[in-house]
Every structure is written in structure tokens, then in C-alpha cells.
């Protein structure tokens, strides 16, 4: 599979400190790639660096042939990469429908087709579209967050710990929805604390520790490897 999003030898951090060292990864169309690893491994940081939220000191990031290293977030969105942060990922004072409208902010012209697609992915939300997003349950809020990001029909979807704090029922739903999105051709990169569940439904995985690549490969292989499981995935 040719890679859509590529990160090569990235060095990045905040302020005086570097957090990521020589990090490389790639995601292709129609695949789900999970970034896993122990706490403090730099998983979320890696995702944030793709979205332009960190100082990039070395290496490069590209989508297709376009080098996006050092671009600001609103430019990266225009390049087809959408990001669902872990926290504060909805407009809690606006309705569900308005959240999706904000997701489609950069679209010109009629976007009712995109709206239909998103409501089909999240049928529960259709009935609640006039409800204030902040009053929904945790799982539904996460769905609003994903729906907002999908309104631009992104090529790449970045999900930062999408199942954090969710009940098993919602976790399963999120994973299922992610698979549906993948099947429509989107490249999905996700960061997960629940490494085993993530690798169980992802196609490939990267194991990070202390800001560096440690292991990578098909998700099933990573999952089956006892050594990796013990050292990096909490047994």
C-alpha cells in the first residue's frame, strides 16, 4: 500500500525540551494504524506534531507529495487532515447539528451529502441534532467529536484516545464506526491507551517508548508478541 501520510525522522517538542526523537511512521488509504506504548511515550505528542501543534526541529511530515512540516493547524486542515483531540473536542454550547456545521466550515457550497453520511454513521445523533452537545453522554459526545471531524471528508483522520473514559458498549461502537470510516478509504491514525483493544481492531501498529520507535508491524503480530506485550503494553 502506498503511504498517504508519512512522517520521517521527526524531532519535535515544546519550549526547550524535545519529546520526539527520530520518529517515523506512515499511514495508507483505507487502513487503521494504532500508536500504542506506555505512559509518557509521546503518542499524543506524535499526533499533535502531525497537526502542527508542536515545534518541529528536524525531520519531515508529508501528505501525498505535499510537505506539511511546520504548517499551522488551519492550513493542515485544508490539506485534508482532520484531528479529534482527546479533551475539549466539541463545541459544548452549540447543538449537535451546529457542531457538524462548524466541522464543515471550510466547505464551499452545499454539503448536505456530507451531513447525510455523518448522520448515517451516527444514527443516534440524528434524533438529538437540536440538543446542546455538552448535555450528551460521554459516548455521544465522542461521536459528535468524530462527526465534526468527518464533515470535511478528510483523507486522514487523527483520533487521540477516542475511547478514553467510555463504557465498553461505546468503545465497541467507536471501533466499529472507525472501521466503517476506514472502509470508505480514509486513512486513520489513532492513539490508544487500551493497547490490546486497539491492536485488536487496527490493521497496523507502532509501539513507541520515550519518544522513539520501538516496534512496528501488522497489528496482529504485535499483539501476539509476548515480549512486546510485557515490555510496552502492560502485560
Amino acid at each position, binding site marked *: 500500500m502506498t503511504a498517504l501520510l508519512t512522517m520521517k525522522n521527526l524531532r519535535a517538542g515544546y519550549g526547550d525540551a524535545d519529546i520526539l526523537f527520530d520518529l517515523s511512521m506512515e499511514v495508507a488509504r483505507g487502513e487503521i494504524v494504532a500508536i500504542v506504548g506506555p505512559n509518557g511515550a509521546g503518542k499524543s505528542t506524535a499526533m499533535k506534531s502531525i*497537526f502542527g501543534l508542536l515545534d518541529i526541529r528536524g525531520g519531515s511530515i508529508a501528505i501525498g507529495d505535499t510537505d506539511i512540516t511546520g504548517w499551522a493547524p488551519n492550513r493542515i*486542515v485544508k490539506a485534508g487532515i482532520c484531528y479529534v483531540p482527546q479533551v475539549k473536542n466539541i*463545541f459544548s454550547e452549540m447543538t449537535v447539528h451546529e457542531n457538524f456545521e*462548524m466541522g464543515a466550515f471550510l466547505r464551499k457550497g452545499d454539503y448536505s451529502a456530507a451531513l447525510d453520511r455523518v448522520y448515517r454513521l451516527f444514527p443516534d445523533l440524528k434524533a438529538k441534532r437540536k440538543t446542546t452537545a455538552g448535555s450528551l453522554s460521554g459516548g455521544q459526545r465522542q461521536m459528535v467529536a468524530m462527526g465534526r471531524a468527518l464533515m470535511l471528508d478528510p483523507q486522514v483522520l487523527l483520533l487521540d484516545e477516542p475511547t478514553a473514559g467510555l463504557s465498553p458498549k461505546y468503545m465497541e461502537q467507536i471501533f466499529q464506526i472507525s472501521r466503517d470510516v476506514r472502509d470508505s478509504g480514509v486513512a486513520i491514525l489513532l492513539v490508544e491507551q487500551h493497547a490490546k483493544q486497539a491492536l485488536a481492531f487496527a490493521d497496523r501498529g507502532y509501539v513507541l517508548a520515550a519518544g522513539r520507535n520501538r516496534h512496528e508491524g501488522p497489528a496482529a503480530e504485535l499483539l501476539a508478541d509476548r515480549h512486546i506485550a510485557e515490555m510496552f503494553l502492560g502485560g
Partner: protein
Amino acid sequence: MDIHSFVNFFLLPGIVQGSIYALGAIGITLVFAIMRYGHFAHGDLATFGAFIALAFTTTLGLSPYAALPLAVVATGVFAIVIDRVFYAHLRALPKIITTIASFGVALMLRSFVQVVWGVNTTSYTRGITRPENWFGIRIKSHEIVTLLVAIALVVALHLFLTRNKWGKAMRAMSDNPELALFSGVDNAKVISLTWIIAGGLCAASGFFLGLNTELKSVMGWNILLPTFAAAILGGVGRIEGAIVGGLLVGIAEELSVLVIPGEYKVMSAFGILLLVLLFRPTGLFRGKVL
């Protein structure tokens, strides 16, 4: 006291004054919500708007009501200019610095008005208007216009914020500025929009203050405290709160003469402000607390 006296001497003046406060408070709450600082030049911007309207009546020979829309637009644009020249380069610094700068802009606006128009009081029209009598309620024509225009502006703003793409973008920036950025909302455009609206409302607020009382260079500064109190009472960031807060402060001010000496009337806003900060800092409609 009978109902007519109550309405004529307290409720109606309170609502008229309250509408003036509400128009100013909406601007203050918008700036608080989107740019996260207190804009202390707001009152003097209202003064500026009022005097610009006066300039239009004297130089172009327009009636005050015709001058109003011009003053609204001019002040709105001027507010953007002020932002670009005095506030924009401070955005990366702690917000309190911009607050300090706005204090300075307030003084500059006031002294500009003083240099050009002096410190004496003046008004848009000469002569005394006779109040009309509608079912026992004595109301003057300019009070009616004040209420109608205030209602119209509020409705227009509401429609803008709920139906228009950029209005929703403003609400999004107030709600979650980072996520708005991630959704591609252009920060600079939203800020310009906020200033046009806040500046325009300031002009309206100042105009009606001048129309209902008189024009003088410190008029805007004098309503700074009540408009801030109204915005905080209603809940920072809540437009409906600013409106209700404005009306409440206006009415409370009129009623206060029943319990405190008349010279201290303006302190009722201060009292409201202290009570809100003590007991319910988020305000009536649960806004932000900065």
C-alpha cells in the same frame, strides 16, 4: 405609589436606560468571550460614536435618526482600526496587558472628543420634547425609538449568530477557540467581526444615551461601570445575559433612589457588581468566569 407612577417614574426610565446599558453590555460580553479581556475603552467608544453622530448632523445636516446608521458603521470600522493599531500586537502577551492598553485607548478617545468638541454639554436637538400619553403611560418619542431600535438590533444580532455561518463561527470561538481553529475558522476574521459588532453597538448605546440625556465627553466613561456590571450580572459571554443584565441594572438604578440618596444612584450598579462577584460570579445565565 400607584401603578402609573411606578411605570412612569421608575420602570420606564429604567427600561430605557437599561436598553442603553444592554447595547453596551453586549459588546463587552462579546469581547470578553472571544478575546478574553475586559475592554475598558468601551464607554469612551460609545462617547465617540455619539459625537460622530453629532458630527454627521452638523456637517451633513442630517436628522439625528438618519445619522445613527452612519455613526454605527463608522464606529464599527473605527473599532477594527483601534484593534489593529493598539491591541493586535499584544495578543501573544498576557491578556491583562491588552486591558491596560484599552484603558489608555479610553483616555485617548475621551481627550480627542474633548479637543474637538470641548467639555461642555450639548445635545442633538434643541428644545424640550413633550411626552405622549398612552393609556396613562407617559413616554417620549425618543424613548420609543430607543426601545424599538434596541430591540431591532438585538433581534438582528440573534439572527446573525444563529443563522449565519460567521455568526456561528463567533459562537464557536467563544465556546472552544482551539477547536474553532482546528475547524479552519480564521481567528483574525472573527475578531474583526466582533469589533464591528461591538463598535456598532457602542455607537448606538452612546447615541441613545445622548438622545435621552445629553452629550458630554465623559458620558461613556460614566456608563462603563453599569455596562460592565450588566455584562457580568448576565454572565460573561451570554448575549441574552447582557440584555437582561442591562435592563436589570437600569431598573435597579431608577429604583435605588427609593432607598439610597439620589447622589449615589450610580453606585447601585457597583452594588450589583459586588453582589454578583460575591455570590454568583458566573452570573444569571452561567457564563464564563475569567
